[in-house]
């Protein structure tokens, strides 16, 4: 009786292995929602974006640049017509790591601007909401100073 059970288990294992191998061979089918927004994406977008009472895009961008400079970031690129600022800094005191950030400034409605920031740490996206909260806190201070 016992050996037959063992055979059954072996057969089961083989079948499972076969299934895995066959799956490995077949080209994976792209799922229907491959490019559809997921809930996680929506969440990270809301963390990365904030809207401000600003009418002038240039004022907003200069505020963003000043905030990044205060944080010790090196401005790499700035594009006024697209509202785009790219900056990076070394993760001091570790001089081999780099923190990068891209900020976009877009008019949302009359007198309102949406500012969105994407930060990366050594080419890996930062998804910690605390990081973005800190960034926007500094930005708010900087924009307030610009308005003065």
């Amino acid at each position, binding site marked *: 009786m016992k050996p037959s059970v063992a055979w059954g288990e072996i057969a089961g294992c083989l079948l499972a292995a076969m299934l895995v191998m066959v799956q490995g061979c077949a080209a994976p089918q792209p799922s229907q929602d491959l490019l559809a927004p997921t809930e996680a994406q929506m969440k990270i977008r809301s963390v990365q974006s904030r809207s401000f009472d600003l009418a002038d895009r*240039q004022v907003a*961008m*200069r505020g963003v*640049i*000043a905030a990044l*400079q*205060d*944080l*010790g970031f*090196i*401005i*790499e*690129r*700035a*594009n*006024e*017509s697209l509202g785009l600022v790219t900056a990076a*800094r*070394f*993760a*001091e005191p570790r*001089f*081999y790591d*780099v*923190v990068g950030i891209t900020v976009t400034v877009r008019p949302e409605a009359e007198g309102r601007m949406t500012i969105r920031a994407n*930060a990366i*740490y*050594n080419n*890996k996206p*930062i998804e*910690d909401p*605390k*990081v*973005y909260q*800190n*960034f926007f*806190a*500094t930005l708010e201070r900087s924009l307030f100073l610009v308005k003065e």
Partner: protein
Amino acid sequence: MTKGRWETMVGGVILAGHLMGCVAQTQPAEFFQLTAESPSHRAMQTRFFETKDEAELLSASAAVLQDLGFQVEESVRDMGFLRATKERSAREHGQDISRFFIFLFSSALVLVQQPPIVIPVDLHQKIAATLITRPLNQEKTRHEVRVMFYRVIWKGNGSVGNQPILPGEQRMEMVRDPVLYQTFFAKLSKAVFLEAFAL
């Protein structure tokens, strides 16, 4: 049987945790937080000028950077933005001297049939500057200039025992030498015929 399975599962979870610990890097939130040094860095890197002409300030800055041997790589007039770089040798006597002494002292390793230690020294560097001009008031009669210098350094080769240390190791740092900033602003002030005010 059940106990063994439990042990395997617990072991697997612990192992996965360890592996995750190896892969996931900490992303400290303080990179986006002002530190105690931020105001002093800002003061060192910033001067303001009583002028209406932002474009003139920017082009004078570009001229000063050129005088200092920089090549302007990127400029955006609407944002008052300049980025310039220069490449130079990073050899320093101090490093060569310590390399020599470490070689000398480690030459005793020959007694145990090991070659002496040759430490790598800094060989080449790329110094870069980013500069931003910005109006300080609504009437745009006063503009500030903020410049930041940083450098990337490449190390040369060395060896420890029979293991060679390959050249090309890279290190990055911000330049925080006040004299460099003072020199830059002194030149800029001369170029625009205006006094540079500290914050």
